[in-house]
């Protein structure tokens, strides 16, 4: 009789990398549903396009690098990258935007750095930033949420717009945004940014239709959707609470004090927390384990840093949101954070 030789431990917990990534996809569902309710079917087309591109790119890279294709594809990480990028860009962005972004994220940010587990930067956010600096017009073309916008596109109109950059009736996205009164509807964070530079006070800005009772119309619900998904991930122990709490605290605490000092000029903590990509960033993007800090103390520091950077960029930077930049900047600091937050090893307490 011959017996199988294996190294201990001989058991394993339920979590596998692929199941963790699958959970991340499930947890995105509430946010994506809400997003498609307010911003149309576009988000679904973007997701489909991104996923197809990502899987093809991933396969090509794995074949080119001579790796076992199946086990690498099964880890579902490319899937998550694709979805995160797809839901970050405007739903009506032309099809080549998401294709370029996904290709860049998978091929350059992930595989050029050595593939799964080796990337220094969050692939989705690096892809996003590339798109933002290369195609600023397409990347900021958000339609107002359906509740306040005049147009809600049908499935066919949406597809037509993504493929050909105008609706079957011949309107461009820019024209749709402008609406009949000719006033372009900016996203809430945009509106704050431009409104303040034009000398409006926040109270005046908040009177605009983009804002409703908590933060931005539509946006606040999307953020709450991602918050729910994020809490699910924590409950399932897919992510730990340290990074999201760090991000939210790093953003809201300074925002709170700034608001106390200059309530007319500084958006309050609730507006910050529930607009833009705050919750998506805090729970789904900053928590990408590969490019985040590893120890719990490190994770808190990493999260705080992201939150603080988001606050700074939003308040004084050139971009209305800043989550993507903040995450990438914090990624760069990870080695040093890891170095200084490494816990003391058992039995080495007295040293130093």
């Amino acid at each position: 009789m011959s017996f199988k030789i294996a190294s201990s431990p001989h058991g394993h917990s339920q979590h596998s990398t692929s199941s963790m990534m699958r959970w991340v996809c499930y947890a995105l569902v509430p946010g994506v549903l809400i997003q498609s309710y307010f911003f149309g079917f576009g988000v679904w087309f973007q997701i489909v396009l991104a996923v197809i591109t990502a899987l093809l790119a991933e396969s090509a890279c794995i074949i080119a690098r001579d790796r076992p294709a199946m086990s690498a594809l099964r880890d579902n990480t490319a899937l998550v990258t694709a979805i995160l990028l797809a839901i970050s860009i405007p739903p009506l962005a032309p099809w080549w935007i998401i294709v370029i972004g996904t290709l860049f994220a998978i091929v350059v940010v992930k595989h050029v750095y050595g593939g799964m587990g080796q990337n220094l930067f969050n692939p989705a956010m690096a892809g996003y930033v590339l798109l933002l600096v290369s195609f600023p017009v397409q990347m900021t073309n958000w339609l107002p949420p359906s509740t306040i916008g005049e147009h809600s596109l049908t499935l066919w109109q949406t597809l037509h717009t993504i493929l050909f950059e105008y609706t079957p009736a011949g309107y461009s996205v820019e024209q749709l945004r402008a609406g009949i009164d000719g006033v372009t509807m900016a996203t809430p964070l945009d509106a704050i940014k431009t409104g303040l530079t034009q000398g409006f006070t926040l109270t005046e800005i908040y009177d605009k239709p983009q804002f409703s009772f908590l933060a931005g119309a539509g946006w606040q619900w999307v953020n709450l959707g991602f918050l729910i998904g994020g809490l699910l991930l924590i409950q399932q122990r897919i992510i730990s609470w340290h990074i999201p709490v760090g991000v939210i605290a790093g953003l809201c605490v300074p925002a709170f004090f700034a608001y106390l000092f200059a309530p007319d000029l500084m958006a309050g903590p609730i507006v910050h927390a529930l607009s833009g990509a705050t919750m998506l960033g805090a729970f789904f993007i900053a928590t990408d384990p590969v490019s985040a800090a590893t120890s719990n103390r490190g994770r808190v520091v990493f999260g705080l840093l992201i939150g603080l950077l988001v606050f700074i960029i939003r308040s004084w930077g050139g971009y209305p949101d800043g989550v993507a930049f903040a995450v990438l900047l914090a990624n760069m600091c990870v080695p040093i954070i890891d170095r200084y937050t490494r816990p003391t090893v058992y039995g080495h307490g007295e040293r130093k």
Partner: protein
Amino acid sequence: MSHSDNNTIYVSSNVSGHFPGGIHPPERKAPACNNSIRSLPLPDELILPVRQHIGPSGNLLVEPGQRVDKGQQLTEASLSLGLPLHAPTSGIIHAIEERPTAHASGLPELAIVIKPDGEDRWGNKHTIPDYREVEVSRLLELIQQAGIAGLGGAGFPTAQKLAQQKPLRHLIINGVECEPYIAADDGLMQAYADDIVAGVKILQYITHCDSVLFAIENNKPKAIDAILAAIGDDSQIALKVVPTKYPSGGEKQLIELLTGEQVPSGKLPMDIGFLMQNVGTAYAVKRAIIHGEPLLERVVTMTGDAIAKKRNVWALLGTPIEHLLKESGFTAQTKQRVIMGGPMMGFTLPSIEVPVIKTTNCVLAPTEEELPAPGPELACIRCGACADACPATLQPQQLQLLAKAKDYDALDEQNLFDCIECGACAYVCPSEIPLVHYYRKAKAEIRNIAREKAKAEHARQRFEARQERLEREKQERLERHRKAAEARKKTQAEKAETPSSDSKEKPESGGKSAAVAAAIARAKAKKAAQAQKADEENSSAKGNES
């Protein structure tokens, strides 16, 4: 199962410390710990590796063909670290030969093979009804002669551990048994609580320690009840119920759990005033001292879904695992693993002919559904789950990267050697990276390098010692010559004193110049001969050319 859950709530923990990390794998102890400990029929042969503990093996006292009684000594400990071996039952020495042994490598080792005669006939026993009348040094000797090694883990000779003379703050009795499946100590505590506590008191007498912390995990309510009853109103023994978490039973983790203190890296618990003994060891000490019985058998948990009768058994040392499996209704599955020890730290056996040794606490034969073999190793995603689980607060993901890169200096800097190989990190790793495997390999490599270095150093020292010796000998020779020359001079001077004083100079200088002249002549002749030879060679070479 639900039964143990209820009781987990019922027994609250009363420890103040805690250690970081740790995991909660499914316990799966119920089938084994709900029965009493069974005795099994004698096997056809008993295989006793002569070396079962840390340290060198003893000298053989028996030879093939010889008849032995139960408890008869088979080997004699040669050095202070060695332990003697005894015949677990009466029978005939069948052979003394190399047999596969219960070691991860499965390499054969010298073993004494006994064919039992079925009579189980005891030889002489030296019982000591009242150990308090005996000197501690004599008790230590008896424990040593009974062949007792720590029954919990590494099998360190118990007398050796007890003999270290350092002031103790606490004697810790480890009844935690935190590995899933294993219930050997649990069973022992339930059935032999009085003997264990009696053993603890002997240990207390030996170590002069007036504070005993008896630790049991809170998932063993029956054992807790039994031990509590056995302790009675002895105020020196405190029962400490620790929360169920793996690896609470690790020596260092248990100390941190009970006292909040950490054993400094590279030190022993003894150095900070703690001594830990396993409950099985306490039991064996009691048998040895009071009943005069050497360590001949131990409790082994037979478990895993490939085994029909999951239970605790009394197994004579040397019993082939095959025998235990057969008696327990074992059906091998395809891709069967047979693990000695628990799922977290046990090792798979290359063959089931290997015997039970002093540290064998469990034989686990799982089915594939029960403990699925790990899937393919994926890339590390730096999720940090491993670091969260590590009780030693190491950074397993870093260690793994460094081990793969063979960066041994960095591994050392990140304290690889503080890893206790508990396997918690590999258990939680979602990418199913066999982390512990990499650490073991790296540790072995580093040890090898150190050994090579030590060897080189040794060789260097030997070389230098030789050089020194040669130099010394040379000096001595020169000195001898000088002395001889001086002596000669002196006698010559004495001789010369008898003729005239100026004739003394002449023959010496004349002798000197004559010798020089002769040497010059010799050198000239040699040169001439060489020149002639070269000429001849030249001409012959030319001849060849033409």
